[in-house]
């Protein structure tokens, strides 16, 4: 519209327009004046914007201004030199802040020839020389740019600059830009980094384990420490070139399993592998490799960091121990056999079986040397693999043996011959057969009687390098024993048997039994263990013999002996001394009470059922006398004498069995009575729970309680736990009583809670047997399962020594218990020799200081220091601390000073019955806050371990 108007406009209109434009300019100028040029825009009342001229001008010049501004804003010192090296322009930083000593700054102003200035500065600054040379080379077109780093140290600080010279434009003759950049900080970072990297390398390269860092994205090896070369026998370069080449070295037997496991775990970057590698020199090393994931901020696996250890020595040591144990087990089995075996065939057969069962050998063959010469006639052999067994027997008896054959050599050289790597032993025939059946090493031991090789013991193991010095020493000894037994059996077979055994029952006779008792005493002495000699007389036997006749009597004795032998763990510990007089050696028992239990059980097993004589049945009974080693005698003779005395006493007093020591009898009797009473107490509900409050030392309020078992014996009165808990433990009744206590505690807790009382968490003690019992956790689950709030009312107290018995198992159990919402406290802390490292890992909530520490606290400064240390330790592990057995104000005051959280003890209250606990401690509590205080964890930050 305005355009059309203008086209049609006459000359005077043009004048008017010119006038208006002038006016507008005036207005703009005036506006600018009024606003001191500080305005960018002005709008009219319709919102249309006038852009002031000054702003437009600014926009036009802003490009150049921006460049200047950028140069000025840069932290670098920048100067522009012309082709002659004269400074034609500098930036703000150069002009104002050039640091002293550096080759820029106020001293080098516009108009100065920079090259000459640098030349003059030569004396003090070597860098100035270099700078001048560099600038000249760029100016001359010999280089497009030049840079050096140079120091400019003052007394106050060390600084570093980077000088950069860049040609101006494409034509070098135009000039150069000289820029000095302060790189002190970068340089320091670089130096620190360099130092730490050097430290890391130094560490990585001096440790015998292999460190490696792998890029999980492109499967690239970023770093591997030089130990790789030593362990793998391959160069680090080869691994960089092919990051999977370490896998090529894995022993063929381990390859598949290792690959599978690695591929499976590689995706998450976390793995633990154990495998063998074969080095280029064919030697084998055991490797344990662990990988750890390195994640980026998004949780994506970017790297795998790992460590691979050569565990060959450890592995070998483990194997050695395992191998030796096998050989020991076999040795002791066969030696027992040698005492017992009656004929050669049994000896051979059983020895082979023991070698396979106890010694875990693949095959064992015992053979005799053919009289004609060098051939073996296998007499007995054993293997779990029947095919292998007959193959080996075939090989051994084969006549196509070369003279170098292992067996031939063992016979002729009368020496043990070993091949510890059958597959690679050139002396071994049948390598392929052995390899196919997984037999890796073998030993042939000559059996030498009267300086003549009469037979061989051949053992085949599936492990390579099985037969080492110590194994062979034991096996040679064994071969000697077997040879001795063979000779013994051959010459004396029957005679010896007659001399040592009772013809009627087959049990050891008095002489042999006496000898064996002596042997057992020696063993017990060495092992520092107890032993019992049990003598047994059949009641009324003389009468039976007289009235029913000798044959019936003999049949009865045989039947008794057979029953005894049936239930005996070891027949060699039984003996028939004379007539109806039997003897047993008993070992491996914990206490006299346990022994008494066992004796009673055996009596019931042997004499519980009647004996059949023809068509008649006869009930027999026995009297027993027991003498203990070492208490009742240090040798076989004394033990016999005293056991006889005890037996006589039992007959005299009509007791079924008696110990030689009277006190022992009394103790056993008392204990057994107590056991019976406790068993009834459980049935009759005579156990009750008493509650002892725990007090917060700061608020003085009851925060929780410990449930303690009491026995309300109707015959006497309340029985203290010290008198019966150990019996419950020994007999296993503790399990049931413990279950009851758990249930009762929860019941009481829920009752108080439902009654609106500020119910507090109650701790229940857990005994060793309970914790070890497989079903314990499900018992706890079951007990708290009755109500959703039950878990919040329960704490389990477990003694430190019990936890430490099997730490790994304890940690798992405790974790599960805590995951149920039940808290855990370590009881009797300070008595269990916890290692700190374990303590920090234990998933527990509280720690209870054992009372003796509390008592000692006031006795000596050391005692006080000890308690203080325990409290600080617990607090640093974020555990609550409860002091037990607090009886005096002094103790309470000290504990409060030391920052102990809670106390428990007679000072505040002894354990009281449930109703008293309720009326005294729960009803009087202000409701609400105390309840929450006791339920909330004292250390909310603590998470499950």
């Amino acid at each position: 519209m305005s355009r059309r108007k203008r086209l049609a406009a006459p000359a005077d209109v043009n004048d008017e327009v010119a006038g208006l434009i002038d006016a507008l300019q005036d207005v703009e100028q005036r506006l600018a004046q009024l606003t001191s040029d500080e305005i960018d825009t002005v709008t009219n009342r319709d919102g249309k914007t006038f852009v002031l001229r000054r702003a437009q001008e600014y926009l036009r010049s802003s490009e150049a201004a921006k460049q200047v501004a950028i140069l000025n804003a840069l932290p670098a010192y920048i100067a522009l030199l012309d082709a002659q090296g004269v400074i034609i322009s500098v930036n703000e930083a150069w002009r104002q802040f050039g640091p002293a000593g550096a080759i820029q700054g106020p001293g080098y102003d516009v108009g100065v020839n920079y090259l000459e200035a640098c030349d003059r500065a030569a004396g003090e600054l070597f860098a100035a020389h270099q700078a001048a040379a560099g600038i000249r080379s760029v100016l001359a077109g010999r280089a497009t740019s030049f840079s050096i780093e140079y120091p400019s140290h003052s007394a106050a600080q060390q600084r570093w600059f980077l000088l950069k010279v860049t040609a101006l434009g494409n034509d070098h003759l135009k000039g150069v830009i000289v820029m000095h950049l302060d790189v002190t900080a970068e340089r320091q970072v670089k130096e620190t980094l360099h130092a730490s990297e050097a430290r890391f390398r130094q560490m990585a390269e001096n440790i015998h384990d292999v460190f490696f860092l792998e890029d999980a994205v492109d499967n690239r090896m970023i770093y591997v420490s030089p130990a790789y070369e030593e362990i793998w026998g391959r160069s680090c370069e080869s691994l960089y070139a092919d990051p999977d080449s370490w896998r090529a070295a894995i022993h063929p037997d381990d390859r598949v399993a290792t690959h599978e496991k690695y591929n499976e775990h590689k995706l998450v970057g976390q793995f633990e592998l154990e495998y063998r590698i074969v080095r280029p020199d064919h030697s084998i090393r055991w490797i344990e490799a662990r990988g750890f994931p390195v994640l980026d901020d998004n949780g994506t696996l970017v790297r795998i960091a790992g460590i691979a250890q050569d565990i060959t020595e450890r592995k070998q040591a483990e194997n050695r121990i395992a191998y030796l144990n096998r050989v020991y087990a076999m040795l002791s089995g066969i030696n027992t056999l040698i005492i017992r075996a009656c004929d050669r065939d049994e000896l051979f057969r059983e020895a082979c079986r023991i070698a396979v069962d106890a010694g875990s050998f693949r095959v064992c063959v015992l053979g005799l040397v053919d009289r004609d010469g060098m051939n073996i006639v296998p007499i007995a052999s054993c293997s779990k693999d029947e095919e292998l067994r007959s193959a080996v027997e075939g090989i051994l008896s084969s006549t196509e043996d070369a003279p170098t054959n292992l067996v031939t050599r063992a016979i002729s050289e009368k020496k043990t011959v070993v091949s510890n790597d059958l597959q690679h032993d050139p002396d071994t025939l049948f390598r392929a057969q052995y390899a196919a059946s997984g037999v890796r090493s073998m030993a042939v031991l000559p059996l030498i009687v009267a300086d003549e090789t009469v037979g061989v013991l051949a053992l085949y193991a599936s492990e390579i390098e099985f037969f080492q010095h110590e194994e062979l020493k034991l096996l040679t000894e064994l071969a000697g024993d077997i040879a001795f037994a063979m000779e013994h059996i051959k010459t004396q077979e029957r005679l010896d048997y007659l001399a040592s055994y009772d013809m009627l029952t087959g049990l050891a006779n008095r002489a042999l039994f006496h000898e064996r008792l002596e042997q057992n005493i020696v063993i017990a002495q060495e092992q520092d263990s107890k032993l019992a000699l049990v003598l047994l007389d059949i009641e009324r036997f003389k009468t039976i013999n007289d009235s029913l006749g000798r044959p019936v009597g003999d049949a009865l004795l045989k039947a008794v002996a057979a029953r005894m032998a049936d239930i005996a763990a070891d027949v060699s510990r039984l003996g028939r001394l004379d007539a109806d007089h039997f003897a047993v050696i008993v070992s491996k028992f914990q206490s006299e009470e346990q022994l008494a239990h066992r004796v009673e059980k055996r009596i019931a097993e042997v004499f519980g059922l009647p004996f059949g004589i023809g068509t008649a049945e006869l009930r027999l009974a026995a009297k027993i006398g027991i003498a203990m080693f070492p208490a009742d005698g240090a040798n076989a003779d004394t033990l016999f004498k005293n056991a006889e005395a005890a037996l006589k006493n039992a007959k005299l007093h009509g007791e079924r069995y008696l110990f030689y020591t009277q006190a022992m009898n009394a103790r056993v009797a008392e204990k057994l009575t107590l056991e019976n009473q406790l068993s009834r107490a459980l049935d009759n509900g005579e156990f009750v729970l008493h509650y002892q409050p725990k007090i917060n030392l700061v608020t003085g309020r009851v925060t929780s309680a410990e449930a303690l078992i009491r026995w309300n014996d109707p015959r006497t009165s309340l029985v203290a736990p010290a008198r019966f808990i150990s019996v419950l433990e020994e007999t296993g009744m503790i399990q049931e009583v413990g279950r009851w206590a758990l249930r009762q505690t929860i019941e009481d807790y829920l009752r108080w809670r439902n009654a609106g009382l500020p119910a507090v968490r109650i701790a229940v003690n857990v005994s060793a047997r309970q914790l070890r019992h497989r079903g314990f956790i499900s018992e706890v689950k079951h007990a708290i399962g009755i109500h959703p709030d039950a878990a919040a009312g329960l704490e389990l107290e477990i003694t430190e020594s019990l936890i430490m018995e099997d730490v790994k198992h304890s940690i798992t159990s405790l974790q599960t218990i805590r995951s149920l919402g039940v808290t855990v406290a370590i009881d009797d802390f300070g008595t269990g020799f916890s290692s700190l490292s374990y303590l920090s890992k234990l998933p527990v909530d509280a720690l209870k200081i054992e009372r003796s520490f509390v008592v000692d606290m006031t006795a000596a400064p050391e005692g006080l220091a000890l308690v203080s240390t325990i409290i600080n330790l617990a607090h640093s592990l974020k555990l609550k601390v409860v002091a037990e057995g607090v009886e005096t104000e002094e103790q309470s005051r000290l504990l409060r000073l030391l920052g102990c959280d809670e106390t428990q003890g007679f000072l505040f209250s002894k354990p009281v019955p449930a109703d008293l606990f309720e009326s005294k401690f729960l009803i009087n509590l202000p409701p609400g806050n105390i309840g929450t205080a006791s339920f909330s964890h004292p250390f909310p930050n603590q998470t499950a371990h």
Partner: protein
Amino acid sequence: MSRRPQFKFCLYLAGDALNSAQALVNLRALCETYLPDRHVIEIVDVFREPKRALEDGIFMTPTLVKLAPLPVRKIVGTLSHTATVLMALGLESVTS
């Protein structure tokens, strides 16, 4: 501990024009110095929101409006003279 008032500003700018840019820089510096943690700045670019400026009765940029605490005050310009600005905003007491 008496609660000190929260300052609320609205700054009307003309894109990244020089005076506007300076006004913004100056305002920020001033707030950081004298009103740390107790100021809110709203920026209105009149090129982007011409109607908003019109509705708010803003005819020149840069213009700073102090909305809170009351009374509302308007200042036009680059805000380079700190003392003047503080006085105009009723903030003299803050400096002393």
